[in-house]
């Protein structure tokens, strides 16, 4: 077995007295699309944010390939370069154009030249279908377009793994499709992805593995067919029953 891209070992996270993650173990192999489902408050977003250290784990280990990101003295910024993240609220930089958004970190973090960064930005924007919006500011773009720019921005850094944190939750229904389309395309291209979502259709069609979380632990995991068609855990059954 090859080395997993992401390895989470016995992850605990508390906010004050509230324990959100109560021991999570997860391994993600290269090229896998792991879809994380669960009711709100189940800790799935927190787990995702621990992967790139936006949240500091209380205990446990988080590894990106052979680097432990939450180790003492780890160069967090260096590790984050290789982890793309897309947020529910887009978080585009409003003072930069779409292209400027995609170029900034390439220039300042990777030290790419102006020309190279611009060329890659153009490529990535083309990939998400927004070549004609390159010079628009975020305020001039729809939510779906903004989210696709955010994806392009993350991809421009050549990440090893992409994290998607409820990226369609803030979008109008008619805009969701475009974003999911981009994500599907990405999955087909072999990108390793961790996806927190409520889009069951996406989970079933694209997910190579579905993880169901509740109460800060992983309750059930398996192939989409297993989890959706033949759930073993009562809480999973309950949750899926409510959804569909």
């Amino acid at each position, binding site marked *: 077995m090859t080395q997993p891209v992401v390895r989470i070992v016995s992850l605990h996270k508390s906010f004050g007295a509230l324990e959100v993650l109560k021991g999570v173990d997860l391994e993600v192999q290269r090229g896998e699309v792991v879809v994380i489902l669960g009711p709100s408050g189940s800790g799935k977003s927190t787990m995702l944010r621990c992967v*790139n250290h*936006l949240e500091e784990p209380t205990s446990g280990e988080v590894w990106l390939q052979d680097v432990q990101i939450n180790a003492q003295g780890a160069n967090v*910024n*260096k590790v*984050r*370069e290789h*982890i*793309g*993240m897309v*947020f529910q*609220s887009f*978080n*585009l*930089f*409003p*003072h930069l154009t779409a292209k400027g958004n995609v170029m*900034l*970190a390439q220039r*300042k*973090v*990777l030290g790419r030249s102006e020309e190279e960064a611009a060329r890659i930005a153009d490529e990535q924007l083309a990939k998400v279908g927004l070549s004609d919006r390159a010079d628009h*500011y975020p*305020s001039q773009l729809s939510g779906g377009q903004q989210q696709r720019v*955010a994806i392009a*921005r*993350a991809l421009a*850094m050549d990440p090893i793994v992409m994290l998607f944190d409820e990226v369609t939750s803030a979008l109008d229904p008619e805009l969701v499709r475009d974003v999911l389309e981009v994500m599907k395309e990405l999955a087909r291209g072999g990108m390793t992805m961790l996806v927190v979502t409520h889009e069951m259709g996406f989970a079933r069609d694209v997910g190579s593995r579905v993880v169901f979380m509740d109460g800060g632990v992983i309750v059930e995991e398996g192939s989409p067919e297993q989890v959706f068609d033949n759930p073993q855990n009562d809480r999973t059954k309950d949750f899926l029953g409510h959804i569909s």
Partner: protein
Amino acid sequence: MFDLTRKYRQGTLLSVLVIFLLLLTLAAPAFAMSGGKVTVDRDTGGQLTRFTFAATTGADETVSRIDFLFPEGFEVSKARVDVTLLEGLKRIDAIYERRIDPQTGVVTVLFDPAVPPGSNLFMQIREVMTPIAGGTYVLPVEYRLLGDSAETTPRAIDGLSFKYKTPPREEVISRWLDGQGWVTTWNNVKFLNLFLKPQQFVRAVPLLFAGWLMSLALVLSAFPISIIGGLGTAFMKMSKVPPVRWLASIYINVIRGTPLFLQIFVVFIGLRTTGLRFPDFVSAIVVLAFNSSAYLAEIFRAGIQSISKGQFEAASSLGMSYWQAMRYVIIPQTVRRVLPTMTSEFILLFKDTALFAAVGIFELMLRSQNFVSRSGNLTAYVVAALYYLIITIPLINLVGRLEVKLAQSEHGVAAPTIKRRDRRTPALLSGPDFDTTAAKHESR
């Protein structure tokens, strides 16, 4: 006792010497009118002027007539003449007649009886209108002796000259206004006369200009320092190290919690008594920058913290360090958000320079105050107000436009709540869409 006598003796000696010298000049043998001198009592042209003529008649001259030949441009039609005659040190009555030829500008004085030889002659020719153009003028004076016939060539005193300057333009305009009918009508209204007297207005404008420049220089020097200081303090206030945070808090609270007036006095009077002394201009900039930094620190901190946490997370997730995220993502957005409030702060600071009048810095306020106390007329205050408004009105407008622009660019995104200096009025902040922009402003 002994000392007193010595002093007394020295005093006598001195007076004897003075009298001797005086007698020497007076009794100097003269065969023509001598010691002639002309002076004027005004140092600028274009106004009624008194001419003084002094001379001693020659030992063999009995003067019966003196002509003053005023140069072209001098208006003598209203001239009046006073004569004082001294024979030795004794005053004698002068009986004379004045004749004026306005056409040629000749003022003639006829003495009957004639002036005895060796007399000291002092004459005043009052209310002569001088031409505006300054320079050195020659005043030819001619005289005739008793018994001279009309054909006799008069004797002349040559080389008598006087000089004055061209008055400044505002003085000329002011004098011109003096003669205008509508100005008189205007000034008959008590209120207008007191606050908007045209003559005072034109005089105050150039005089206060230097003060305006001083006020501007103060604020323009202090504000850039305040921006740097404010940014530094803002980061200190957000520091993870508690003592650093406390230090910033103490500084901000002490400065914002005390009047600027008091801070000025502390620096100008307090520091002087301890022997520390800087040029006033430098001290003033230091106080202003120190004061404004505290306010800007709070504006910047609120601005930075108003940027959504997601922005910082997005920057971090792309591998940017704290300072990279600050520099390329957070600060540029903060600048746009705080620009209106910063401009307001600049306006406040500019107006605050007036407080330096109390410590003798010749800025706009002190200059207008001096002008008012000299003229007894309040027009200079109105002029000062206009000078302040030249700067503040466009900036107030700018603040409004910046706020609208900000509201548009952020599409109604909730913007920072920035605490303002509570002693200030919120009047500056009336921009459209205000609720969605630079936020709720506090006022008392």
